[in-house]
C-alpha cells in the first residue's frame, strides 16, 4: 500500500495537482473574505505544506511536479515586458519622477536591509536572502540564489513584504501625506511589488499603472545595483 502511495505521489502530476488544488482554495478564500491578509499564495503554500506533513509525503516527491510549476517562473518574469510596453505612454510622460522614485526606493530598501542585517548580526547567506525582498518574486529568487542566499527564505520574505505593503497602503498614504496618485503608485510598486500593485489597482487606475511600472523598473534597478555589491 505504501509503495503504491509513494509511486503516485512521485508522479509529476501529483505536485502540479496539489499546487492547483491548494491555490484554487486560496483564491476562493481570498474572494470570500476580501482581505489582502488572506493572500492566495500564502494559503496555497500553507495548505501544501500541511498536506505533505500530514500524509508524510517526502518533499522530493512533491518537487517532481513542483519543478514543472517553477519552470514557468522565467516566462512569467519575461512577461513583465508586455506590461511595461502597455504603460509606455505613461512612462514616457513621467519618466524622471518614476525613475528617480524607483531608484530611491531600491537604494533605501537594499541599504536598510543591509544595515539591519548587520545590526542583528545575521550571517551573509541570510543577508543575501533578504536584500532583494522588495522586488517581485522571480527576480528576488534569482538574485538571492546568485548571491548565495536561501531561496525559500527569500520567497517567504518577499510574499510577507508584499502583503504588508498592500495591507498598510491606506495607512502609509495617510501617514506620509501622499495625495499624488503617481507618488502613491510608484511607492507601492517599489516597496511591495506585485501584491502592492494589486492594492494600487484598487486605489485607482493611475496608481495601478504606476505601481506596475514601478515594480518592473525597481526589479531591473535592483539587479543592476546587485552587480555592484557582488
Amino acid at each position: 500500500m505504501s509503495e503504491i502511495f509513494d509511486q503516485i505521489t512521485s508522479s509529476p502530476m501529483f505536485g502540479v495537482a496539489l499546487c492547483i488544488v491548494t491555490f484554487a482554495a486560496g483564491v476562493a478564500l481570498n474572494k470570500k473574505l476580501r482581505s489582502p491578509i488572506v493572500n492566495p499564495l500564502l494559503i496555497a503554500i500553507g495548505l501544501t505544506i500541511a498536506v505533505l506533513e500530514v500524509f508524510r509525503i517526502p518533499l522530493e516527491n512533491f518537487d517532481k511536479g513542483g519543478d514543472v510549476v517553477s519552470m514557468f517562473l522565467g516566462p512569467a518574469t519575461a512577461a513583465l515586458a508586455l506590461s511595461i510596453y502597455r504603460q509606455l505612454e505613461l512612462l514616457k510622460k513621467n519618466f524622471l519622477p518614476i525613475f528617480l522614485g524607483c531608484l530611491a526606493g531600491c537604494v533605501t530598501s537594499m541599504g536598510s536591509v543591509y544595515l539591519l542585517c548587520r545590526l542583528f548580526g545575521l550571517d551573509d547567506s541570510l543577508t543575501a536572502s533578504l536584500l532583494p525582498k522588495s522586488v517581485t518574486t522571480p527576480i528576488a529568487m534569482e538574485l538571492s540564489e546568485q548571491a548565495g542566499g536561501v531561496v525559500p527564505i527569500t520567497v517567504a520574505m518577499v510574499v510577507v513584504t508584499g502583503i504588508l505593503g498592500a495591507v498598510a497602503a491606506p495607512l502609509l498614504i495617510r501617514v506620509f501625506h501622499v495625495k499624488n496618485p503617481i507618488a502613491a503608485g510608484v511607492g507601492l510598486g517599489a516597496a511591495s511589488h506585485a501584491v502592492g500593485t494589486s492594492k494600487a489597482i484598487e486605489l485607482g487606475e493611475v496608481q495601478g499603472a504606476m505601481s506596475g511600472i514601478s515594480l518592473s523598473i525597481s526589479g531591473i534597478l535592483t539587479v543592476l545595483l546587485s552587480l555592484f555589491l557582488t
Partner: protein
Amino acid sequence: MQIIVQIGVFFLICLAGDFLSALLPLPIPGSILAMLLLFLCLMLRVIRPEHIDQKSDFLLGNMAFFFIPAGVGILEQLPLLLENLGPLAVICVVTTVLTFAASSGTVRLVLWLQNRKGGGRSE
C-alpha cells in the same frame, strides 16, 4: 494552436536569455535578460503585443501560482526561519515602510521641482 505558438515564443526567448546570461561575464539572471529581449523585440516591432498577449496575460494574471513550490521549500528551512523570526519580522516591517516613504517622497519632490520649473512658463 495559437496558444502553443505563444508558449513557444516565450520558451525560446527565455532560452535565449539563459544563453546570453551564460555568455555575459556579469551575473544577470537569464529571466531578466529574457524580459529585456522581449521588450526590445516589442519596441522594434519584431514581436507585436497580439503575438504574445494571451500567454502573457495567463502568466501575469496567475503569477502567484508559479511561486508555490519555491515557497513550499521553506519546509526544509523552517529551523533557520524560526531561529531568526524576530529580526526577520522587524527587518520586513521597517524596510518596507522606509522604502515606500523614500520612493513616494522622491516622486513628489521631482514632480514639485518640475512643476516649479515649468510652472513659471505655463501659469
